[in-house]
């Protein structure tokens, strides 16, 4: 591990990150109960919640809220009833028979109905999405809890999009600068490039070339490198106290997986299709059985890519935030430090998982590309 040279600095960084997360969690304690009106009302029999139960509900909701995307960049709240919010609103862009652009501050953190161009919109507490409503902001749900309101196409600059944009800009500045420094210094990396160059070479030599092959790996390199660093940086950003969950969002991982699928499909050679529709080396009857299975396999592969990354990051966030909440829940001299220690160790583990998931996504993508671009026949393999 590269970090091992500076363990103390690294641990310090994690510690700082960690403390901010706890401060994040702290704010839940004081959030007013009325905020979560919707979820409680759905339980038809209005339970009278005790103080502890209320707190539990708040924590649960806070964690859920953290895992979802949101339309404003909320960093933390303070004050007696969490009336002071630190953060900034993000623009809302909706396509609903015409373009609607307005600031998310109109929603006032989901409390109010926003009006634009004669249409009324409200953010559902249930899934954090914008729904079209009447002027009262009534959201109707069916018996299964599915919202019946019309959903406009939402191109908003949400928290997740804001963060992926930042990650993209960061990557561009970092690697374009690195690319330029090579020209300046005569093919020798300088500064931060000394750290990233071995990773780039590792991806080329250990991921791309063994899986795709010397002949074809070049055209996939840009995608592999970009996706690796994108996922890695996004995962790391997810661990910062900014409270974003970029790669724990199915829309993001789905987009990445779909791109992998399209690249695999469109660069596939004859041999790949032959393998799917007319598997060589098996009896004719089996070929008819195998063809649909193989065809389904091509879709399952990117699907599992999407689910794996999403579930890993989501699970990591849920566990971390639950442990942090446990710190407040335990509320004792023994329990709280224990929960702190546990969540601290888990944060370290998550740093590893962040890298590992980026590696696995890239590795599997390379594996699929390799299968697609394979040309010669491996008789012994089948």
């Amino acid at each position, binding site marked *: 591990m590269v970090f091992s040279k500076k363990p103390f600095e690294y641990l310090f960084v994690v510690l700082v990150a960690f403390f901010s997360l706890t401060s994040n969690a702290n704010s839940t304690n004081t959030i007013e109960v009325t905020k979560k009106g919707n979820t409680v009302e759905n339980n038809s029999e209005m339970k009278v919640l005790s103080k502890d139960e209320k707190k539990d509900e708040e924590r649960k909701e806070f964690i859920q809220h953290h895992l979802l995307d949101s339309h404003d960049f909320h960093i933390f709240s303070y004050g007696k009833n969490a009336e002071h919010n630190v953060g900034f609103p993000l623009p809302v862009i909706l396509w609903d028979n015409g373009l609607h652009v307005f600031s998310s501050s109109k929603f006032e953190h989901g409390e109010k109905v926003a009006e634009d161009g004669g249409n009324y919109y409200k953010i559902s507490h249930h899934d954090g999405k914008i729904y079209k409503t009447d002027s009262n902001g009534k959201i109707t749900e069916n018996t299964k809890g599915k919202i019946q309101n019309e959903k406009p196409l939402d191109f908003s600059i949400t928290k997740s999009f804001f963060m992926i944009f930042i990650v993209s800009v960061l990557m561009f500045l970092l690697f374009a600068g690195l690319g330029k420094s090579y020209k300046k210094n005569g093919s020798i990396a300088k500064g931060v490039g000394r750290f990233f160059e071995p990773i780039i070479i590792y991806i080329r030599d250990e991921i791309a070339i063994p899986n795709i092959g010397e002949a074809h790996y070049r055209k996939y390199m840009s995608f592999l490198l970009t996706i690796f660093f994108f996922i890695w940086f996004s995962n790391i950003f997810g661990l910062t106290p900014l409270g974003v969950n970029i790669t724990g969002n199915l829309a993001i991982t789905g987009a990445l997986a779909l791109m992998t699928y399209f690249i695999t499909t469109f660069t596939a050679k004859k041999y790949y299709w032959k393998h799917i529709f007319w598997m060589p080396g098996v009896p004719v009857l089996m070929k008819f059985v195998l063809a649909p299975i193989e065809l389904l396999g091509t879709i399952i592969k990117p699907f599992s890519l999407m*689910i794996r990354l999403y579930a*890993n990051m989501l699970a990591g966030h849920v566990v971390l935030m639950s442990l942090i909440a446990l710190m407040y829940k335990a509320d004792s001299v023994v329990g709280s430090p224990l929960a702190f220690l546990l969540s601290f160790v888990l944060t370290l583990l998550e740093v590893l998982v962040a890298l590992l998931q980026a590696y*696995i996504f890239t*590795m599997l993508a390379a594996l699929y590309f390799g299968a697609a671009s394979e040309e010669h026949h491996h008789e012994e393999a089948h």
Partner: protein
Amino acid sequence: MEIPRIVGAGLVVIGAGIGIGRIGGSAMDAIARQPEATGKIQTAMLIAAALIEGIGFAAIFAS
């Protein structure tokens, strides 16, 4: 209706856990036998574990 699904998901997760454990154990054995092939074994191990992990997650989400 809800309980069998959760139990089923739990069973799948147990199976996935056993599978990943076996992969990890076998990889350890293999590394002990051939320490010079550590990198390759680790790569293969991670891929196999990731594939099984995917099944586990699918089970959890399907429940």
